[in-house]
C-alpha cells in the first residue's frame, strides 16, 4: 500500500530534476516529496523523511536541512563523486551515505571520448560553418589534430580511466597513464597502457591529456601553469573529473597564448560558469554542462542503485554502496 511506503526527499520531478521514468523507479518503494513541497511546512513533513536522494548535487545536504530531518537514515547521492558531501559531518549525525559506483563508468568514458573527438576534429566550428548564414571555410581553421595513432595520457586510471583507455585503443592510440598506484600487468596489457610514474613525463609526451581521477582537495589545481607549459603546444586537455583539478586562470592563459591547442571540459568551477566568464569566449574551449552520465539507460541504472541502497538503509540492512568514513 502506497501509504506504508517510506518517504524520500528529492529535488524535483521534471526537466531540472528527475524525468518521469526515474520518478516511477523511486515510487516503487518510496513516497517522494519534492523540496518545494517540503519547504512549505518543514516541521510537518520533516519527521516523515527517512531518505534524502541527491541528484546532480540537489538538494544540498546543508546542516540546516539535515537538522529538520530527525528520521533521516541515509543520504543517497547519484554518481561516484562524493566531494560535495561533508562525510564526517553527516556520519556524525548518525547518517549513512551511499553513492552509485560502477554504473556511471561506461557513459562517462563514452562522453570523454566524444569530447576528445569533437575538440580534436573541430566539430563545433565545422557545424557553425556548415549551418551558418554564410558558408565561408578557411581550410587551416578547420584543420584538426589526428586522433588515430596519437598518444593519450590518462591521469587517473580507475574504472573510468581504464574504460577510456580501452576506447582509445580502438583508435590505435598509444596509451600512457599516471595513477596513485600502478595497475596490474593484466590491466595494462588489456588496453596497451604504459605507466608513467612521473606525471611530467606523461604531460610532455601526450597529444591528449585526460583527467579522469577521483577528486581530493589536495588535488586542487593539479594542472596549473607549470603542467600546461610542459604539455605540447598541439596538445588538448580533456576534463571529465572535477573543475577544481584545473587552475582555470592558468588554463585561460594557456589557451589564449597557444601554450596548448585546446581544452574540452565537462566540468568547471563553478558549475555553471557565470555568464561572461572568459572561458566561455575562447574559441578553443569546448565546454559542456556536466552531462557525462546523461543517458536514459545510465540514469535508470543510477536510480535503481540509489533506490537499492535506500531500501537497505530503511530496513537496517547493510548498504551495498555505503561510503565509509575515510
Amino acid at each position, binding site marked *: 500500500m502506497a501509504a506504508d511506503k517510506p518517504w524520500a526527499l528529492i529535488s524535483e520531478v521534471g*526537466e*531540472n530534476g528527475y524525468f518521469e521514468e526515474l520518478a516511477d523507479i523511486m515510487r516503487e518503494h518510496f513516497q517522494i516529496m519534492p523540496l518545494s513541497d517540503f519547504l512549505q511546512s518543514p516541521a510537518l513533513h520533516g519527521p516523515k523523511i527517512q531518505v534524502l536522494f541527491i541528484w*546532480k548535487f540537489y538538494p544540498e545536504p546543508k546542516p540546516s536541512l539535515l537538522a529538520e530531518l530527525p528520521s533521516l537514515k541515509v543520504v543517497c547521492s547519484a554518481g561516484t563523486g562524493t566531494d560535495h558531501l561533508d562525510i564526517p559531518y553527516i556520519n556524525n549525525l548518525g547518517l549513512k551515505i551511499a553513492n552509485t559506483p560502477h554504473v556511471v563508468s*561506461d*557513459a562517462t*568514458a*563514452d*562522453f570523454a*571520448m*566524444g*569530447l576528445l*573527438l*569533437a575538440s580534436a*576534429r*573541430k*566539430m*563545433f566550428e*565545422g*557545424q557553425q560553418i*556548415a*549551418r551558418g*548564414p*554564410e*558558408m*565561408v*571555410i*578557411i*581550410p*587551416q581553421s*578547420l*584543420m*584538426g*589534430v*589526428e*586522433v*588515430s*595513432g596519437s598518444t593519450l595520457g590518462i591521469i587517473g586510471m580507475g574504472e573510468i580511466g581504464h574504460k577510456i583507455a*580501452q*576506447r*582509445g*585503443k*580502438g*583508435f*590505435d592510440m598509444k596509451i600512457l597513464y599516471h595513477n596513485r598506484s600502478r595497475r596490474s600487468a593484466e590491466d595494462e596489457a588489456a588496453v596497451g597502457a604504459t605507466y608513467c610514474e612521473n606525471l611530467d613525463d606523461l604531460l610532455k609526451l601526450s597529444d591528449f591529456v585526460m583527467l579522469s581521477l577521483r577528486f581530493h582537495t589536495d588535488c586542487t589545481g593539479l594542472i596549473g601553469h607549470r603542467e600546461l607549459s610542459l604539455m605540447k603546444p598541439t596538445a588538448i586537455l580533456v576534463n571529465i573529473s572535477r573543475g577544481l583539478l584545473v587552475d582555470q586562470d592558468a588554463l585561460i592563459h594557456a589557451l589564449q597564448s597557444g601554450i596548448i591547442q585546446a581544452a574540452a571540459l565537462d566540468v568547471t568551477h563553478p*558549475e*555553471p*560558469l557565470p555568464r561572461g566568464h572568459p572561458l*566561455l569566449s575562447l574559441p578553443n574551449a*569546448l*565546454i*559542456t*554542462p*556536466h*552531462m557525462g552520465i*546523461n*543517458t*536514459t*539507460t*545510465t*540514469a535508470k541504472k543510477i536510480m535503481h542503485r540509489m533506490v537499492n541502497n535506500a531500501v537497505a538503509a530503511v530496513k537496517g540492512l547493510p548498504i551495498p554502496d555505503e561510503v565509509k568514513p575515510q
Partner: protein
Amino acid sequence: MLLQLHTFRGLFNGFGRCERNVSFASCVRVSIALKKNIKAYGTMAQDKPLALISYVGGMHGLIQEAADLMKQHFKLITHQEFLQNPSLHGTKIQVLFSWVNKPELLPSLFTSLPALKLVANGGVGIDHIDVPYLNSLGVKVSNTPLVVSDATADIAMGLLLASARRIIEGHQISMDPKTVDFQSLIGTEVTGATLGIIGMGHIGLRIAQRGRGFDMKILYHNRNRRSPEDEQAVGATYCKNMEDLLREADFVVLAVNLSPQTTGLIGHKELSLMKPTATLVNVSRGLVVDQDALLEALQKRTIRAAALDVTYPEPLPRDHPLLHLPNIIITPHIGTDTTATTLKMVQMMIDNALAAVEGRQIPNEVKPK
C-alpha cells in the same frame, strides 16, 4: 639527370629498404648524395614538371604545407594563372592536382592541356570524375586510397558520439549568455549499443574497430562478405540482407562508395525500417541518402537523429530545411581534415604524379570498371 634520379630512387626509397648486395652504408652514402643532388636540382625550378592546381589557401584551396610539398617536385600553376594565358603553360602541364573537386574538370579545360598525363585526385572518392572520358583523351586518373581511412573513421565515431551524447547542444547551452537551465540534455547510450555499418571496406572496417572499443555489437552489410579473420578481428556479424541491419541497429553508419547502385540507398523505406531511437551517420557521399526522405524522417521522428559530414550539394543552400532541424549535426566534409592525413594524401598524389611524368606504372591508378 632524370635517369640518375630514377635509379637512385629505387635504392633509397623507403628508408632502409636496400637492394640486395648493396650495403646499408652505401645506401646511406647514396641517399646523402642524392639529397644534395635534389637540393641542387630543387633550385632549378624551371626544370620541374608543371602541375595545375586550383589555388592555395582561401575557401577550398590547398593548405600551405601541401603546396610546399608539391613544390619540391613540381612547378605549380594556379588555375587563375593558367586562365590568364592558357597557351603559355598549357602545352607543358603534365599533371592536374584535383583538390575538393577543384579545378573543375570541364572538357574545355582538357582541350587546353594537350600534354596532360594524369589527374591526381586528393581523396579516395572519384564519383565526380569521368574516368572513361579522361582515359579516352589519354589522361590517367589516380586517387588516394587507404591513407584517408583512419581520419574518416575517426570523424564517423566523432559524429556518432556527438549526436548520441548531444555534445554540440551541450556546448551551445554552456556558452549561451542567456542560458538559465543547464541540466535537461539527455542522450542515448553508446556502450553496448548495436552499430550497423553499411559498406565494410577499408574505412568501414576501421569504424568497426573503433566501435568495438565501446563494446558495441557490430553488424555490417557489404557487397561481399569479408573473411572470417576480418570479421573476428572486429567482432562483426554479416547481414546479407541490409533490411535486417536497418531493423536492429541503434546507429547506422554509411561508409560506401558512391555508385549507381548506392545512389539513394537510404530512402523512405530504409528509414522507416530503422528504430525510432536510431541515429544515421553518413561519411560517404550526400547522394547515398535521399535527402527529402531524410528530412521527413527527422521531422516526424521516424528516426531519432542524423549526423552528416556529407550532403548534396556541398554546401547546402542556406535556406535548406535540413540546416534548421534540432536533431541533426552537419559538418562541412571535414572527414580527412587533419594536417597529418592531408599531407599523406598530398604525398600520395605527388608519388602518382611523378610516376606519370616518368612514364612508370601509376601506383593508385583508377581504372574504369
